[in-house]
């Protein structure tokens, strides 16, 4: 007994749930070790899912590259060319970020620096409402309202029935909550002393927000933007409906252009026989998409870790 108190011979706290308690493992409790093992297996399942994703994608991809040379895949045109799809994804994503970064950051700055605690409690869920709308609904909206009414009738633009501009704009609206909500967390984490220091030097709230708080929270804000980017790259239904179903390597956002996710949705929903080369293209594009988003996510996680350590 005394050894536990004085030397802490019990196990060090495992997880947050446990104080340094007497070592309960010493008691033989077979049922509890079974339960523990079951819980651990459930947690390990998440790792199995990641491995499963890679495994599920690799095998058809190997078959695919047996039929199609590398050069035909990473080409600008041809049946199996992926670069037009990557360009389409890049185009819609850039448009989305142009919309979402200023609006998301603006909302975050208001919530964190201007709104009272009570106003924030009401306003933050309002911003997050946008995240609850299913993407197929956004896609329908882009196709039946943004393109014909907003772009063609109101703004008088010469846009196609499907076009990257409408898809990108709506995609941007969809990722506003992601950027706003995570940026707000980062801005709120900046210590009060820094704001007080700035205000004491005679700066007003706008100067404090833009020149002190925002730079201090930069890595957290960057993580929010990167996560929004990853959402935009991986989003399917909006671009499948509104961005177009033809590969088109172009820099004109008024034209229709297919994205990686749009291609996967079209090919999977089409008539291609399972196991055929054109069906396997879908796994090759899927693996590329997974790799791209994985890299983006790792960058985002690293950025978040940095901003947590800052203060």
């Amino acid at each position, binding site marked *: 007994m005394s050894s536990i108190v004085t030397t802490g011979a019990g196990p060090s706290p495992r997880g947050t749930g446990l*104080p340094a308690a007497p070592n309960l493992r010493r008691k033989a409790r077979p049922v509890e070790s079974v339960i523990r093992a079951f*819980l651990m297996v459930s947690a390990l399942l998440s790792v199995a899912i990641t491995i499963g994703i890679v495994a599920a994608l690799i095998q058809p991809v190997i078959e695919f590259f047996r039929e199609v040379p590398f050069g035909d895949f990473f080409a600008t045109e041809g049946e199996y060319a992926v670069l037009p799809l990557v360009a389409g994804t890049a185009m819609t994503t850039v448009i989305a970020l142009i919309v979402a970064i200023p609006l998301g950051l603006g909302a975050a700055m208001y919530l964190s620096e201007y709104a009272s605690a009570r106003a924030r409690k009401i306003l933050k869920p309002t911003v997050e409402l946008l995240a609850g709308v299913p*993407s197929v*609904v956004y896609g329908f909206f882009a196709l039946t309202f943004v393109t014909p009414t907003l772009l063609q009738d109101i703004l008088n633009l010469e846009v196609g029935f499907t076009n990257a501009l409408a898809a990108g704009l709506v995609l941007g609206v969809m990722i506003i909550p992601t950027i706003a909500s995570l940026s707000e967390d980062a801005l709120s984490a900046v210590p009060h002393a820094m704001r007080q220091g700035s205000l004491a030097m005679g700066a007003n709230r706008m100067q404090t927000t833009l020149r002190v708080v925002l730079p201090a929270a930069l890595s957290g804000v960057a993580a929010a933007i990167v*996560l929004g980017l990853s959402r935009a790259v991986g989003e399917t239904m909006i671009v499948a409906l509104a961005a177009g179903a033809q590969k088109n390597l172009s820099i004109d956002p008024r034209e229709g252009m297919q994205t990686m996710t749009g291609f996967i949705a079209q090919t999977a929903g089409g008539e291609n026989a399972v196991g055929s080369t054109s069906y396997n293209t879908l796994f090759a594009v899927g693996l590329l998409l997974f790799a791209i988003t994985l890299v983006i996510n790792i960058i985002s*996680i690293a950025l978040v870790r940095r901003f947590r350590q800052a203060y």
Partner: protein
Amino acid sequence: MSVAATTARDMTRVVSTGRSKDRGVGSLVFLGALWFSLFFGVMVLLVLIIDVAIAGSPRFDSALLTEYGSIVSPETTGFRAGILGSLWLMLFTALLAVPLGIAAALYLEEFADGERWWNRMIEVNLQNLAAVPAIVYGLLAVAVISLMGFNRTGIVLGGAVALALLILPVIIITTREAVRAVPQDIRQGSLALGATVWQTTWRQTLPSAIPGIATGTILGLSRAIGEAAPLIVVGLAGSVRFDPTGLFSEITALPMQIYSLTSQSREELQTAASAAIIVLLIMILGLNALAIFIRNKFQKTW
């Protein structure tokens, strides 16, 4: 408190918020821009709902809910198969994802030693999985279903596996937050009375965390119900004309039906799609309202 101290404090508050110098043109323009970005999203949402509701209003009738989809008679096409399919998918998605998600979260919060490399690996991996595109989960579900030995994949099981994989990280993350919010005192009290770690978790921590877990689970399910991308990959058809009867029966889902109608050019079908979107939004709103109700009614504050 003396009058002087109160005055000084009030002055400090005015000065320290910088409010006294916020009257400049630049500041006001900036504030206006912030207000605009805050309400831009709400405005878009209002336009979306009003636009879709007006477009769908001719079809707010009972046939919308009770009839099967039909290209032949587009005036009375309905979403019975999609609505039932979505409800079935919800049920089996929850059955697959909720127990696994809670078990994984309990392990990570109550049993795992955060110093060990494998537990850290699980953590990073979970963060990653939460941001994997939904459509990739569809590709994984196709592989899982064919491993199980089924060659038809557009079935209840296929869709449920895809959606369960999709929301598993969400459920794990929200459950962990709910479990973490339970104060240490409760665990320590239980351990001090001689309960084992598992008894403490099962009889004290978990019951206290249930409102939070339920809220997170319902929000996860509301994300799953609107998701169409993984279902396309799994091979759910948009045009199923019968009710689901079991785990292996072919089904469709409401977002799938909306997707397949959107690409039709007939005006009646577009109208029906608009009406179906309102039905889908009401279902999601209902789930969210339920989650908020549970949170406000049952959540404890310690």
